[in-house]
């Protein structure tokens, strides 16, 4: 409906026809658009006040209409954008469906594996600290158990580690003495038995502590009992299961677990022997000068 059809809507002051688009329909006070007969009649009557009032009102009405037009344009743009957004997945899905099968396989697998890799990396970063902290705490606990009351412990890098030995620690006493502890992990019946073996400077066992074991409950786990582990205290290199002075008794029915622990202790003694042989050699050289 053209605005020119609405007679009487000409603003005489400015000579600009007042635009009448959907605006009347949106403002609640106005009559519906398909009742044009009413609108022109009411409009001139409204605008039929004094000159100043009419000018102000016209300006206000213009501003309102301009604003309303802007709003309408914005809404129209939003609707168009919404339509496009709704279209996008459909377009993408269409593209995907029309891809050659090999490309489809490759793309979907690539996307899935990338997302998985990202998730895994994120979880790894999240859990790295707690995992290493647990390990650290367990090792410190074991060190304190086999070599109590020392001033400090230090991990020795680059030491020779025979057999199941994993790490060599030195423990420094307040009186300047140095003892050692070896972290060993021999293969038991149900997996690795991680232990800490304390060895004094003279080469005899001070104590054995289990860091973790997964042996048969009630049987193999007896090899982790203080009673069994205590049998190793004071033993020296060459300890094995048997009757001799430097031997220990295995646990009946838990041969494999007992043997594993014995192997671990033996390897620990060997590691310390290897280390003291090398470091005392160098120390003596230094002291000789």
């Amino acid at each position: 409906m053209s605005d020119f059809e609405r007679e009487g809507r000409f603003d005489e002051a400015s000579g600009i026809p007042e635009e009448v688009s959907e605006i009347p329909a949106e403002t609640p006070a106005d009559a519906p658009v398909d009742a044009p007969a009413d609108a022109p009649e009411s409009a001139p009557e409204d605008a039929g006040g004094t000159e100043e009032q009419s000018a102000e009102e016209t300006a206000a009405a213009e501003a309102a209409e301009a604003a309303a037009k802007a709003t309408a344009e914005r809404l129209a743009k939003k609707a168009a954008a919404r339509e496009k957004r709704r279209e996008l997945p459909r377009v993408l899905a269409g593209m995907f469906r029309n891809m050659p099968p090999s490309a489809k396989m490759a793309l979907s697998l690539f996307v899935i594996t990338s997302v998985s890799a990202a998730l895994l990396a994120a979880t790894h970063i999240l859990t790295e600290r707690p995992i290493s902290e647990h390990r650290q705490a367990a090792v410190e606990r074991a060190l304190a158990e086999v070599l109590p009351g020392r001033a400090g412990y230090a991990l020795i890098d680059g030491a020779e580690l025979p057999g199941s030995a994993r790490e060599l620690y030195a423990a420094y006493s307040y009186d300047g003495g140095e003892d050692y502890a070896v972290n060993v992990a021999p293969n038991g019946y149900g997996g690795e038995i991680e232990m800490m073996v304390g060895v004094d400077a003279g080469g005899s066992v001070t104590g054995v502590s289990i860091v973790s074991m997964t042996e048969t409950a009630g049987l193999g786990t007896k090899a982790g009992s203080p009673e069994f582990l205590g049998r190793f205290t004071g033993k020296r290199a060459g300890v094995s299961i048997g009757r001799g002075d430097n031997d220990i008794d295995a646990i009946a029915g838990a041969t494999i677990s007992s043997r594993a622990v014995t192997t671990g202790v033996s390897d620990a003694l060997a590691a310390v022997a290897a280390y003291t042989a090398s470091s005392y050699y160098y120390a003596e050289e230094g002291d000789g000068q």
Partner: protein
Amino acid sequence: MKSDLKSVGSRFSDGLIFQNPVTVLLLGMCPVMAVSVSVFNGIGMGLSATFVLIFSNTVISLLRKFIPENVRIAAYIVVIATFVTIVDMLLQAFFPQLSKSLGLFIPLIVVNCIILARAEAFARVNGVFNSALDGLAMGIGFTAALIAMSVVREALGAGTLLGVPVMPPGFRPALLMGLAPGGFITLGFIIAAMQWALNRRKRKGKL
């Protein structure tokens, strides 16, 4: 195949009893026998597998229109393996003792036939909510089977339940129950009991 419009309740009773993944569908037996030496381990494994089941079912159901037919097994495996590794890392970080006890069998959740079977049979063709629910129900069934097995094996094999001695003082544990043969035999008897109960039900129902 249309979505199952079963009620939530019947889905759970299916997962727990009538279509129990271990004793009726006969899936996922490796970890059940290996891990059910103690109730603590059994519950831990059950909950871990349930977690993986729910998440993998959900994701696979979400992606079901996106995964082409001929690579679907590989895709499922990647999704399942991701969640299993996440569970593995979380356990190592926050439940280290459980992680050590379950050991090898946590990464082996990847090849737990239950998870792959449910992905293939259910999540592929059903909606997200139903798939998640199915994962939960099957996981609960798996955990229930694990608990049943481990209660028997721990009580008879070590005289304890969850570490607490439950047998009369004169009891000498049958260590065999905690070892491989004990696993086989306990599962055999549990499945036999299940089959007997289901047969009876069938016979009674038919009357």
